[in-house]
C-alpha cells in the first residue's frame, strides 16, 4: 500500500516544531496592549481616575466645610465670595459639597455592583455548572426579580427597608444580582459543554477544582465587562434613590440629594442647581465609555 509507506516516514519530519513568531503574551497582557492603543478609552479612564482621586482627597482639597451654613450666603451664583460654584439653599459651599458628595455617589456606584458580581456570579456559575433542577431553581428565582423594572425594584426595596446609605446599597445589590447571575450562568453553560471540562473530569477532578481552574477564568471576563457597565447605572439609581429621599439622608452631601433639594431654587440660581446633575452625567458617561473600551479590549475570541 503506497499510502501506508507514505505514513511511515521518519518521525523527524517535525516542521511543526517551529513556534509562532509572535511574542508570548498572556490574555491580560494582550488586553492591556489593546487598551494602550485606544486613546478614547484612555482619556475617559483618566477622567474617571480624576473623579475617584478627587473624591478620596476631598477633605484636603475642599475649600470650605461642606456642612457650614450661612444665612446671608444662601443661593449665591458661581464665584460669589470665593465660592467657586456658588452656595446652596442653606448657604453651604457647592464645590465642597460636590467633592464630598462624590465619595458617597462613587461608593453607591461601586459597592453594590461589586457585591452583586460576587453573589450573582457565584449563583450563576453554580447554576450553570450544576444544570438541571438546581439551575432551574436559581434562574427562575432570578426571573421573578427580573419581572420588575430596575428603578421600581430599587425604590420598592429601599422604601420597604427605610432610607440610609446601607439600605440603599442593599436595595441596589438586590437589583443587580439577577442580571449578573444571568451573565455568569450563560457563560458557564457555554464553557461546561466544552471538551476541556470533560478532559478535566477524566483526570478525576471534582466540580470545585474544575470551577476554580477551568470555569472561573473563562467566566470572569464577561462578568467583569458587564459589572463595569453597571457602575454608571448604579450611580444613577443611587442618585435617584437619594432624590426620592430613600438613599442618603440630609445633611450628608450626595449628588442626588443635592439635586433634589436644589430643584426648588431652579429659578433663583439655575446654573448652581445644575451642578450636581452635571457631575452625575459626566461620571456615569465616563464609566460607560470606559466599560465600552474594556469590552472591546477583552472580547477577543482566543
Amino acid at each position, binding site marked *: 500500500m503506497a499510502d501506508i509507506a507514505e*505514513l511511515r516516514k521518519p518521525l523527524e519530519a*517535525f516542521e511543526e516544531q517551529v513556534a509562532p513568531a509572535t511574542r508570548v503574551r*498572556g490574555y491580560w497582557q494582550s488586553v492591556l496592549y489593546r487598551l494602550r492603543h485606544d486613546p478614547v478609552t484612555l482619556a475617559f479612564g483618566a477622567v474617571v481616575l480624576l473623579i475617584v482621586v478627587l473624591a478620596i482627597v476631598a477633605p484636603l482639597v475642599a475649600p470650605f466645610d461642606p456642612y457650614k451654613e450661612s444665612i446671608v450666603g444662601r443661593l449665591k451664583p458661581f464665584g460669589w465670595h470665593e465660592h467657586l460654584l456658588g452656595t446652596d439653599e442653606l448657604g453651604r459651599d457647592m464645590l465642597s459639597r460636590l467633592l464630598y458628595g462624590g465619595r458617597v455617589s462613587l461608593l453607591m456606584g461601586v459597592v453594590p455592583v461589586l457585591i452583586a458580581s460576587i453573589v450573582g456570579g457565584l449563583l450563576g456559575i453554580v447554576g450553570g455548572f450544576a444544570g438541571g433542577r438546581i439551575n432551574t431553581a436559581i434562574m427562575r428565582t432570578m426571573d421573578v426579580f427580573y419581572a420588575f423594572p430596575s428603578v421600581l425594584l430599587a425604590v420598592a426595596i429601599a422604601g420597604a427597608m427605610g432610607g440610609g446609605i446601607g439600605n440603599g446599597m442593599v436595595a441596589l445589590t438586590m437589583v443587580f444580582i439577577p442580571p449578573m447571575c444571568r451573565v455568569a450562568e450563560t457563560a458557564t453553560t457555554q464553557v461546561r459543554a*466544552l*471538551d476541556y471540562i*470533560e478532559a478535566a473530569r*477524566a*483526570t478525576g*477532578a471534582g466540580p470545585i477544582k474544575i470551577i476554580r481552574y477551568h470555569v472561573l*477564568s473563562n467566566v470572569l471576563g464577561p462578568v467583569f465587562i458587564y459589572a463595569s457597565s453597571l457602575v454608571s447605572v448604579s450611580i444613577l439609581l443611587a442618585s435617584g434613590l437619594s432624590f426620592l429621599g430613600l438613599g442618603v439622608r440630609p445633611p450628608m452631601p450626595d449628588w442626588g440629594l443635592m439635586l433634589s433639594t436644589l430643584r426648588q431654587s431652579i429659578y433663583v440660581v439655575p446654573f448652581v442647581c445644575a451642578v450636581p446633575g452635571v457631575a452625575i452625567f459626566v461620571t456615569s458617561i465616563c464609566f460607560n465609555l470606559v466599560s465600552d473600551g474594556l469590552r472591546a479590549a477583552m472580547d477577543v475570541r482566543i
Partner: protein
Amino acid sequence: MTVIDRDNTILGPPALDPRDRGGPAQPMLIVRDLKKHFPVKGSRGKSVQAVDGVSFDVTKGETLGIVGESGCGKSTLARLLLHLIVPDAGELVFDGDAVNAPDGIRVDALRRQVQMVFQDSYASLNPRMPIRDSVAFGPFIQGKRKPAAREVARDTLRKVGLDPELFGPRYPHELSGGQKQRVNIARALATGPRMVILDEPVSALDKSVEAQVLNLLRALKRQFNLTYLFISHDLSVVRYISDRVLVMYLGRVVELGSVDAIFDEPQHPYTRALLASRPSMDPARRIDEPPITGDPPNPIDPPVGCRFHTRCPFAEPVCRTRDPALGYWQGDKAHAAACHMLDPRSGHRRSRDA
C-alpha cells in the same frame, strides 16, 4: 514471553508495570453488555439507544480500533468506559477489577490508569490556560504539588515532540491543530496512564499532520507500554494503527476481528459495504454506485431484528424478526460477526447450511 508488534520488531519482554494485577493474559478491559439510552425530551418513554449491549475485550498492549458511521455510538462508548457518562447497564472490568463494584476499582482510581484524547483539539484545551498548566493539571489533581506537576508537564511535552520552553508558556490559540493535538496527547499521558482512549484524535487534522501524529502515537505506545482504544471513522487510519478492529452499527457491535481478518475477509454485509465505500487506488475498479444507500435508521426507533436489515442487500424475513448474536465465524475465536448468514441454524437462505 516477548512482545512482537506489527512491524515485526522484537521488543523483548514487556516492561512490568507495578500496577499490573492480572498478568499479561488478563485483558486490560472487559466490557460486557454496556448500555446507554438517552431519554428524548418531550416524548415519554422514548430514548436514543446510543450504545445498546456492547461487549468486547481489550488485551494488554494492543490497539483496538473502533470504526463506524457518525452517530453509531463510538464517542458515547468512549465516554462510558471512563464513566464520563454513567452507563445504564453493563459491566466494566479493568485489569480484573470490576469498575464501581463494592470489591472492585473505584472510578477515580480507574481515571488514574485510563485517559482520553478528544477529537476537537481546540475545544479540549482551556483557552485561558497556558499549555504547561493544561498538561500539569492532571498530575496536580492526582496529588502532585504544583512545581512537581510542572516538571512532569515539561517532560511529557518533550516526549510528544514539543519544546517545553518554547510552547509551555503559550496559549492554545497560538498553536496549530497538530501542535494542539500533541498537547492533548501530552495532557493524557502526563498522569501516566496504562490505557488511552483516543476519540477520533486525527480526524480534524490535515493529512500530513495526521501521519505525524499517528507515528507519534505508535512511538509513545511502544515507549510507555500503552494500550490504545482508537476510535475513528477513517478506515485507512484504523488499518494503519490497529491490531484488532471492532465495527459498530447503531449502538451495537457487528464485527470484531484482527485487522487483517476485517480488511481481507470481512464477513458482515455492513463491514463489506464500509470497505467498499473507500475509493479504489485503481481507476479501472472505481465505482459510481454507492455500496450502501440511505442514512442510518433513527436510533430512537431502531429497526427490530438485525439493525442493519433496512439497508442490507441480503435481508430476509428472519433478519426482520430475530436479532443475530455476535457469533464466532467458523469457530475462529478471533473473528466474530453478528449476521444470520453466518449462522447455519438461522434459517437464512444464504447461511452456510442452506
